């Protein structure tokens, strides 16, 4: 926690996907995971990625997927290794394993013993077709009881049965909250895995000229490096990134992590997305080519990013005109990412 400066983000995250296999088969899954998928990352490469991340000064390791707990031994080995190297770790899971409170406790205890520091649960109408919300609450209860930091993410569309409110009014959740205090529950749009399909969202979730100022830079690209289940290294952990070849920056079996990161950092477009976000780039492209429509189409920025990379018209505008943005992007990098940028003289306001 920073005192005496603005609250600007720091640190890089290594995201590891030990498998793309999942116990659920959600429609529009961001990694195209389901129970039939059999892609697993070798434990040696998981440990190697963590070694390289520690060496490069990363601040956090996240295990996600797929459903990372389906590669249990690799997951636990990875958490233990990160812990040994002084890196805090986080698990993203659908809680399918919390079949009973006792089973939930047993799994959480094993993760805690390995050194896990935080756990995130994914749920919502799609996930709940395969994993009841009751398991998420049971797993959250066990996790809070063991001292883990907990967050729950609820996928949202316009019409849905499961919301933050339905969870917060669930008797099991109320009992949990009485024991541990309320859990952080975030709602986030569930996006189609196609740039041309309009998701079913509330109007106020959609990006347009009026809401554009609320959309800042992407906090994933060039901040999170992902080692995927097939060994491919990606420059972000965005939903749908498997559909964007430009985000693939190497292979953990042959590319050193620092080399992959360097390669990503030499791509001006990724730097641009980092400071402005895909929505603003789409809006900028539409000024150059008015045939590009973007308003009221996207609620999820990863879908806007998919559009940016897949629409030939947007790609052409970016190729033709991006040089005029170089100065502005570098200026924004300085202002947003250098914690001492433009600081008033002599640190007079330090506390």
């Amino acid at each position: 926690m920073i005192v005496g400066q603005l609250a600007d983000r720091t640190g890089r995250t290594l995201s590891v996907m030990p498998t793309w296999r999942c116990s659920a088969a959600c429609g529009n899954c961001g990694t195209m995971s389901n129970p039939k998928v059999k892609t697993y990352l070798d434990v040696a490469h998981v440990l190697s990625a963590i070694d390289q991340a520690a060496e490069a000064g990363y601040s956090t390791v996240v295990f996600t997927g797929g459903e990372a707990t389906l590669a249990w031994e690799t997951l636990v080995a990875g958490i233990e290794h990160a812990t040994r190297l002084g890196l805090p770790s986080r698990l993203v899971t659908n809680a399918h394993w919390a079949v009973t409170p006792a089973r939930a406790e047993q799994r959480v205890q094993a993760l805690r013993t390995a050194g896990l520091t935080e756990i995130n649960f994914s749920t919502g109408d799609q996930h709940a077709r395969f994993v009841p919300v009751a398991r998420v609450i049971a797993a959250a209860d066990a996790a809070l009881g063991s001292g883990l930091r907990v967050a729950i993410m609820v996928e949202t569309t316009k019409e849905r049965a499961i919301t933050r409110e339905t969870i917060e009014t669930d008797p099991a959740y109320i009992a949990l909250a009485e024991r541990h205090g309320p859990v952080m529950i975030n709602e986030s749009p569930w996006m189609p895995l196609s740039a041309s399909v309009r998701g079913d969202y509330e109007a106020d979730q959609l990006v347009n000229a009026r809401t554009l100022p609320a959309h800042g830079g992407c906090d994933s690209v060039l901040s999170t490096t992902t080692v995927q289940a097939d060994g491919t290294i990606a420059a972000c952990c965005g939903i749908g990134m498997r559909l964007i070849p430009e985000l693939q920056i190497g292979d953990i079996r042959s590319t050193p992590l620092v080399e992959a990161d360097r390669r990503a950092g030499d791509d001006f477009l990724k730097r641009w997305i980092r400071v402005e976000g895909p929505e603003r780039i789409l809006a900028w492209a539409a000024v150059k080519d008015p045939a590009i429509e973007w308003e009221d189409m996207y609620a999820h920025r990863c879908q806007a990013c998919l559009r940016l990379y897949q629409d030939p018209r947007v790609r052409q505008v970016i190729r033709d005109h991006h040089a005029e943005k170089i100065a502005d992007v570098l200026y924004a990098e300085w202002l947003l990412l250098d914690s001492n940028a433009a600081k008033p003289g002599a640190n007079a306001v330090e506390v």
Partner: protein
Amino acid sequence: MDDSSRLVLEYPELARRADAVVSQLASSEDFRNAFVADPTSALMSTAFAEVDIPEQATLDRANRLLYRLLSNRDFMAWAVQRQRELVEEINAVPRGEGEAGRQRMLWDQASRVELQREALNAIARYVPAEVIAEELGVESVDSVALEEQPSDRIVLSTRASSVNTVTNSNFTVTVTVVLGLLFVVITAFDMTPYAPEVGISRADIQSVARFMEAQFVPEMRQRGSRLQEGE
């Protein structure tokens, strides 16, 4: 997809060259001024000599305003003080059983919107009107005032004695800066890709500057045009 068709805007050693530019921005006031006045020349004179940068390249007005806000001693004193209060508020929540409550406070988006609203008020209080006018490209603004509304919005009023070529035409422009638009979008499978932060970030201040740019400038210009047309 072959390499040539990939949308990768690769410049050799871009990261290193970007670092060089940022270092110069941080260390040299002369370079900063030159960069703001003529970004193309400044870039080509440093690490980007071979890059064909269009002459019309400019800096985003919201970023220019962001710089002026970050370098305003009074505004930043307010921001740092406010953040200290927020940190103390979070730390006052008991650890152990209160951990979930602490975490919830860290992620409270309503609080973040409220912080942006406070920042907007602080801008009106501490940043001279002519600075805002200059960076947003609106001429001859006399004053900027904020007036909170009962709704989840803030009204920014400006009294201008001249706009562009129009002089001696006093009027007030009222622009609604809607800040209550933030909602969480989980950008990744990892839903907390970085540690939640307490207080006001540079990105928050940039967002406020963007709201001002997006809503204030067009309205001012529209009013100026109407006046020129003899409204």
